C-alpha cells in the first residue's frame, strides 16, 4: 500500500517556511493571499499503516514541534492535514509540488536508507513533495501564477492545485 505522510507544525509553533512562502508570493507582486502554510510530504509505497505511523513518528517528524498526518495515496486529495490546523470557514487551496519522473530525489534516497535503519527491511519506494496551503479567496489564474513563478520549477517539478474548502 502507498501512504502519504504529511508533516505539519504543532499548534502553537510557528510555520516559518509557510511565512517565507507568503513573503515570496508578495515579492512576486501577488497581493491577494493573506496566509500560507507549508508541509513536506512523503509518498511511501510498500508499507503498512502501522509502519507509516512508525516512520512518521521516528524518522520524518520532530516530536516536539511537529505532528504528522497520514493518508492513503488513493484517497481524495481534499483530505489533507491542514484541516487539523485551520479554523473558521475561509477558503483553502493546496498546491502540491512533486518531482517529475526521472529527476534525482536525494531526500527520498536518505529516507529509504533511514527506513532500513529502522528495521523495515522490505523494498520500499519513496517520493518527496511539498504542499503549500493558500488561504483566502484566490482565483485559479492567480494560483497558477503562484505555482509556476514561486513554488514549482516546471522543468523538474509537476504541480497540482486542489480546492480543499
Amino acid at each position, binding site marked *: 500500500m502507498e501512504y502519504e505522510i504529511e508533516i505539519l507544525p504543532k499548534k502553537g509553533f510557528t510555520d516559518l517556511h509557510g511565512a517565507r512562502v507568503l513573503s*515570496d508570493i508578495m*515579492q*512576486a*507582486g501577488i497581493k491577494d493571499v493573506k496566509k500560507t502554510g507549508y508541509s513536506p510530504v512523503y509518498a511511501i509505497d510498500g508499507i503498512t499503516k502501522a509502519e507509516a505511523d512508525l516512520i512518521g513518528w521516528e524518522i520524518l517528524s520532530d516530536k516536539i514541534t511537529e505532528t504528522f498526518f497520514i493518508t492513503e495515496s488513493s484517497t481524495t486529495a481534499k483530505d489533507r492535514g491542514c484541516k487539523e490546523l485551520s479554523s473558521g470557514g475561509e477558503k483553502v487551496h493546496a498546491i502540491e509540488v512533486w518531482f*517529475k519522473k*526521472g*529527476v*534525482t*530525489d*536525494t531526500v527520498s*534516497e*536518505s529516507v529509504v536508507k533511514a527506513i532500513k535503519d529502522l528495521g523495515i527491511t522490505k523494498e520500499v519506494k519513496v517520493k518527496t513533495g511539498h504542499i503549500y496551503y493558500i488561504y483566502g479567496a484566490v482565483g485559479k489564474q492567480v494560483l497558477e501564477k503562484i505555482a509556476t*513563478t*514561486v513554488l514549482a*520549477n516546471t*522543468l*523538474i517539478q509537476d504541480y497540482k492545485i486542489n480546492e480543499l474548502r
Partner: protein
Amino acid sequence: MNCVNIEILKLNDKELINLSKKNTLSLNLKEMKAVKSYFKKLKRDPTDVEIETIAQTWSEHCKHKTLTGVINYSGADSKGKKVNITYKNLLKETIFKATAELNKKWCLSVFKDNAGVIEFDKLNGIAFKVETHNHPSALEPYGGAATGVGGVIRDILGVGLGAKPLANTDVFCFGNPDTPAKKVPDGMHHPKRIAKGVVAGVRDYGNRMGIPTVNGGVHFDDGYMANPLIYCGTMGIMPKSAIEKKVKSGDFVVVAGGRTGRDGIHGATFSSAELDKESDVSAVQIGNPIVEKKVLDTMLKARDLKLYRAVTDCGAGGLSSACGELGESTGVRIELEKVPLKYQGLAPWEIWISEAQERMVFAVPPKNVKKLLNLFDCENVEATVIGRFTNDKKLTLAYNGKTVGQLDMDFLHKGVPKTAAFARYAPLKETLRKPVKFNGTRIRESLKKVLADSAVCSKEQIIRQYDHEVQGQTIVKPLQGCAINIWGPGDAAVIWPYAVIKNTKKGIVLSNGINHQYGKADTYKMTASAIEEALRNAVAVGANPDRISVLDNFCWGNPEKPEVLGSLVRAAQACYDMSKKFGVPFISGKDSLYNEYTIRGKTFSIPPALLISAMGVIDNVENTMTMNFKRAGNLIMLLGITRNELGQSVFNRINKISGGIAPNVYPEESLKIMRGIYKAANAGLIEACHDISEGGLAAAVSEMAFAGSLGAIVKLGAVLTKENMTDAEILFSESNGRFIIEVKPDNAKKIKDIFKGSAISIAGVVTGDCKVEFGSDKVYISEKTGVLRSAWQNALNLF
C-alpha cells in the same frame, strides 16, 4: 537496451549539421566532416556511443576550442594602437605564455590538471580551482548552483592524487532583483528567484560538506537577467608527493560514489549552446553532498595508503571525459554494464555520458583493488571495477560482452579540427567630462546612495547563510568588526591550516576581483582592474604580493560574433600584460562562452565578465590585518594616487552622469605600494587596511568607520591627485592602486620611510564620535556612521 549505428558516411553537409543539431552534439560542419572522414577510413558508420563520446570530448566545455583555435584579431593592442594579429592559440600566446615566462619555482602544477597547485611549504602544496555553472543555474537555480559547488570540490579531489578541501568561494552575477515581474522574459525565472535558489544551493552543498565558504561577491546587472553567472571555487591542501599521477597499463578502472542516472545528459555540449525556453530537462543535475562527503573522507584515506595511481572526477561529459582523460596515453576498455545505475533502462551511450554527480574514477594497481574496494565498503561508499587500462591507445567500450565503440585515443584527443575565427574590437572612446561640482548636501546624499548601491551594499544576508567557520581555520573572516558588531566587508579571507599541518604559522589567502562595468568601456581595463583588485584585496589582509597566483574565469557571449571575440582577445592581452608586470602567474582557469539566450527570435548577450581569483601564501598569520578602524586618535593614511577616473563608476551611475574615463592600472606604482604594505604589516605597523574600489574613497572610509564603530575625519586637500579634481571627484573616483591604512601616530615616521617614493599622505584621523567627516576649503560633509551603515546594510532585499 543496446547501441545503434548512426548513419553518417552517406550524409551531405546539410544532413551532417542536422544530425548534430538533432542529437544535441554541438559539433560544427568542419567537426562533423572530420568525424565522417575518420569513420570513412574505418569503412563503417559510428555507433551512438562513439559519436556521443566524440561530441563530449570535443565540446567547447572540455576542449576550449575558441581560445585554443586560430583567431585573426583586428583592433587595439595594449597601448591602444590599432593592430592586426593572428593568434594560433590565444591561450598559449597570452595566459600560458605569461606563466611560462615568469617561471616561478613555487608553481608546482599549472594548466595540466583539474586545478592549479602552488607551494605552501617544503612538504605541501595548495590547489585552487574556480568553475562556472551558469546554464544549469539559469534553469534550476538550487540544483544548478549546488552541483556547481559539488563539481568544483571534486576538481580539488581530482587534482594529482587528491587534495583536502579547506575552503570554498562563490561569486554571482544576477539580474536586478527589483525587476518588475512582467519584464522577466517568458519561461525564465525572476532574478530574485534565481538569486535565492543559487544562494540556497551553494549554502546547502558547502555547509553539508563541512567546507567553509569564505570569500565571494555578488553583482547585479540587467544583462544577467536570464543568464546569471555562478562562479564556485574550492581551495585544498595536499602533500607535494601527491601532485603527480600516472596511469599504468593493466591498472583497473574503479568508479566510486554516486550511481549513474539520466542526470545532466548533454551537460557538456549543452554548455556550448544558447539557452532558450525549450532547454532540455535532462540537462538538470541534482546534487547529494552527503554522498560526496563520504567519498572525500574515504578517498583521502586511500590516497594516504597509496592504494591508487591516479584519480579524476566525473564532471562534464561524465565517465566519457574522466576515463578518456585518464586513459589518453595508454588506452582503456570499459564494460558499461558494470556501472552501477540508479534505475534500469539506460542506453549504453547514456551510461557513458551521464553527468550524474558525486562520482570519482580511479586507476588502481591490481594488487590494491581488493583493499580499495574494502575501504570504500567499510565507509558505506559504493565502488565498482568497470574496466581496465590497456596498452593499445584505444578507447574500447563494451556492453554485455559486445563491443559498442572503439576509437583511437589520438583521434579522440587530437583530432578536433582547429577553429578559425575573426575578431575585432574598438574600445569606447572615452573623454574627460565637465568637472562634477556638487555641494556638501549633494555629496552626502550621493554617499548614502553609493553605499546603498547593489555593487557596494552589504551582502551580509547571503554571507550569514554560509558556514564560514567550519574546520575552525578561518582566521580572517568575510565579515569584520569589533566585539559583537561584526558586519564590515572584509577584503579577503585567510585560512590557517593548523589542523592539517601541525605547528605551521603559514596561512593561505583567498580573494577575488571582478567588475563587469569597466568592460562597457574597454575589456582591457576591466581585466587589468580585476587582476589588480584581486591582488589589492589579498594584500589588504596581509598577503605577500610576490607569492600570489591567480585563476581566470571568462564568461562571455557568443564568440562567433567578431566583436564579442575581439573583446575576449583584448581581455587575454591584458591578462598577459598584467601577469608579467605584477609578476603574478596564472595557474588555472576556465571559460564559459555562449552566454546568450534567445527569446522570440531576439538574442540577448551577457555583459562580458572576467573573474580573477587569487590565492597567496602568508608566512606568518599573526601579521594579518582586518579593515575596521581600531582606535580613536590613530592616523588615516592614504596610499596611491587618485586620478579623475569616474567612467563606469557607481557614482556616475547613480547620478546618471555619462562619459568619463574608466580606471586604468599602473602596475609599477601599485606593486611598490603592495610590497610596502606587506613589509609594514610584518613589522606590526598597520592597525587596519582596506582597499579602495567601487564607491571610491568615500565608501571605503565609511566602511572602515562603521565596521569599527568609530568615526573619521578626512581632509580632501591631503589626498594626492594627478590632476585638478573637484571634491566629489576625489571622493568617488574609483582609481586602482589605492589603500587606506590606519596607523598609530608613533609609527607614522616608520611608515613614511617604508613608502618613500610612493604616493602617501596623512589624510585624516580616526575619531571616537561615530561620525564620518570629509572637508576641504570648499565643502564640509558630516554624517553619523549609524546612518551610513543603515543605508549600506538595508539596501539589498533578497530574502
